[in-house]
């Protein structure tokens, strides 16, 4: 039902609104094509060539998505960007105490992805994963009606979003967002270097 549900929902609502008057066929009938995002999950099917003996072992990754979450994509973005660059355990710990509806969905998605990684993608330790990519996308939007003063009509958008997460095996990078890229000593050295690089033009 989930893979074709957006189109069914539109049919259902169409009928809801025009119940009494018209008997028309809906915009899409049985076995309409699903418009759920598919390309993100194709990364899970990519097979890498066998590695030589001396090479560093390639870290395993798993891509997972949760589609048509009844939540605004802009609000979900805040939760998605909180989790980026954290280890899976840390992310779950933090999400358990984030006071947002989206945190529940993100936590479920991460737990599902962790389970998939262990069962299908040959990840040895389920805690040895970190969140490499985590972002939200716009899902379907169902338009409703509200009334304003003076006989005016307004539109209400019931928004759905998709959530995508990619877990990678190994230790997370020290600072994913590069909040403190340079220490004070490094900043001083950089400034000195830029000062010394200056040249008076047309001179030796």
């Amino acid at each position: 039902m989930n893979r074709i549900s957006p189109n069914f929902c539109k049919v259902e609502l169409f009928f809801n609104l025009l119940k009494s008057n018209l008997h028309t066929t809906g915009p899409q009938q049985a076995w309409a094509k699903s418009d759920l995002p598919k390309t993100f999950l194709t990364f899970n099917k990519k097979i890498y060539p066998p590695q030589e003996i001396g090479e560093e072992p390639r870290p395993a990754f798993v891509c997972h998505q949760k589609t048509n979450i009844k939540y605004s994509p802009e609000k979900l973005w805040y939760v998605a960007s909180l989790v980026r660059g954290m280890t899976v355990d840390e992310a779950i710990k933090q999400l358990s105490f984030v006071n947002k509806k989206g945190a529940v969905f993100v936590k479920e998605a991460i737990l599902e992805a962790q389970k998939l990684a262990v069962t299908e993608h040959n990840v040895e330790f389920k805690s040895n994963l970190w969140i490499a990519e985590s972002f939200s996308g716009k899902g379907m939007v169902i338009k409703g009606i509200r009334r304003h003063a003076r006989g005016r009509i307004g539109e209400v958008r019931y928004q759905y979003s998709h959530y995508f997460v990619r877990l990678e095996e190994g230790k997370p990078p020290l600072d994913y967002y590069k909040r403190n890229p340079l220490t004070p000593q490094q900043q001083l050295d950089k400034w000195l270097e830029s000062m010394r690089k200056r040249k008076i033009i047309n001179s030796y």
Partner: protein
Amino acid sequence: MANSILTKISPLWKLPSSTLIQPSRSTTSKHFNPKYKKHRAQKYLKIDLPDTNEDDSKLSPEKMRQKMKERGLMPPRPWMERPFYISATGGVFEGYVPPEGDGKASLVSTTRAKQTVQLLEKKSKSMMAIRKIKSYDEDFDSKEFCNEAQNIYIKAHESLANNDKYALRKYVTEKAYPEFRHNSLLKTIRWKFLDSLEPPRVVHARCTDIVSKENIFAQVTVRFHTRQQLAVYDRFGRLIHGSEIVAKDVLEYIVFEKHLSNLYGTWRIHDKIIPDWAPPKDPSKLTRLKPEPEPVSVVVEEEVEQPAIADK
């Protein structure tokens, strides 16, 4: 409502002072006058939003039928119009039982010599089956068939390693196809056939008929003693089984099947007979979490108190 006098009159208001030290709120909203909430809700048209992440498998069939009716969908067809054709049997009929210690004795011992000279002519049922095969297939010869069987075996494994599904279907029956491809998805398999330690030998043959007397299938068991190399890599190119350098001696009893009544039937790998005395397989390099032991419920017997007075 939270700040009204009515709540303060109720007896619950008379709580001990210790609980009133921590500031707490009984409602979540701070709106100073929430009396227009109902009016605001009435401005919006109520819409039934669909539950997109509902699990289809958890719905009962009655609920599913109701949902499909609501959407104006026809139920699925209760019968199957697609005919099916039996092109391979479901198993091995009267399977070969390999003698214990086959191929284990040293090459120079007498037991080994005896094993190599085991004639198929002494097994009457197998000879009858081979005669039946020859009645359909004039050019059938046990010795030539052995070489043909080895070629089919090598080609089947090579097409599995190359992930060539169409070629695999030609060398493997429908029953054995899922068993061949099991657990090989999203993996790279490197298989090499080095050489044959002993020439392949037909050890068993049987013929069976399915459904009607004329529909005959022949099953011939061939014994292979070969040296092979196998290396399996996971999706990311990391070695998970076998090795690129080490070769292994493999003693196998492969059942080949052919649909004799079918003009276009070919000999294909059908099954493998694994004897009870076969050596255990190499342990896998993959690890699993040991499941937690189930909590043992301790039944506490309640001691029935015997009353001091007998009649109670």
